[in-house]
């Protein structure tokens, strides 16, 4: 298989993100539409139903380094959230605690990460955790 270089993969992801993903529960875009390196991204997740996160809107920032997608991006929640894979002092998503980051593959994408984080919110060990006030930020 042809190995798609970083920038062309990110352009594909950008175009997919601009069209909108699936049911709209996750979205992402460039933090700075002028950034020719396409390094910094914003993400949004709408909390999964049947959990304490239902209808909450979470903002995230995602950094794709120069070796993306050979290495996964770094992901931070900007909105406060109590989730087992999220550092409670700075919002950092611990890559050793999120399966798609731990077992990262080149064909994964920003969408893969956001969707898995959303599923995590509904996991039995997270679904009922007490949550900070809605709208508060790290």
């Amino acid at each position: 298989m042809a190995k798609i270089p970083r920038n062309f993969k990110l352009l594909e992801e950008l175009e997919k993100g601009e069209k909108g993903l699936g049911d709209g529960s996750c979205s992402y875009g460039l933090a700075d539409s002028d950034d020719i390196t396409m390094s910094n991204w914003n993400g949004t997740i709408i909390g999964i139903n049947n959990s304490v996160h239902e209808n909450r809107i979470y903002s995230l920032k995602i950094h794709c380094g120069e070796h993306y997608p050979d290495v996964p991006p770094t992901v931070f929640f900007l909105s406060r959230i109590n989730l087992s894979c999220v550092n409670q002092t700075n919002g950092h998503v611990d890559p050793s605690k999120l399966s798609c980051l731990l077992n990262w593959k080149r064909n994964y994408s920003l969408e893969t990460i956001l969707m898995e984080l959303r599923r995590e919110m509904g996991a039995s060990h997270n679904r009922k955790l007490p949550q900070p006030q809605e709208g508060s930020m790290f």
Partner: protein
Amino acid sequence: MALPKRIIKETERLLADPAPGISAIPHEDNLRYFDVIIEGPNQSPFEGGVFKLELFLPEDYPMAPPKVRFMTKIYHPNIDKLGRICLDILKDKWSPALQIRTVLLSIQALLSSPNPDDPLANDVAQHWKENENNAIQTAQEWTRKYATA
């Protein structure tokens, strides 16, 4: 992973007999991925500039067109802020009879003749239509600022 003969042939010719003002060199670790340099054509607002681009031949090349992007900032109505290029042969007018060389020559020609009626960067195109001299001046400034080594 075996590289199709067509890509090997094209690469050999690009290296042995490059088009004037254009160079394309494949990455050692990814022979479908090229570092491209296009010199701004004479008598264009981009004259004197050296523009870096990247080009990738997807799995289904030559049935699908190459992907090409400017990595140097450029003020041009058919090139957007992320370096994406609006050029018909990179999209619906692609034909497997075209080659990397023809694509790069077309991009070079696009620098000589910006087409504000088929814009990708709307604000730039509008500037070009409303005050062409002033837009050309901005393009020259950007060329000096971003595209000179």
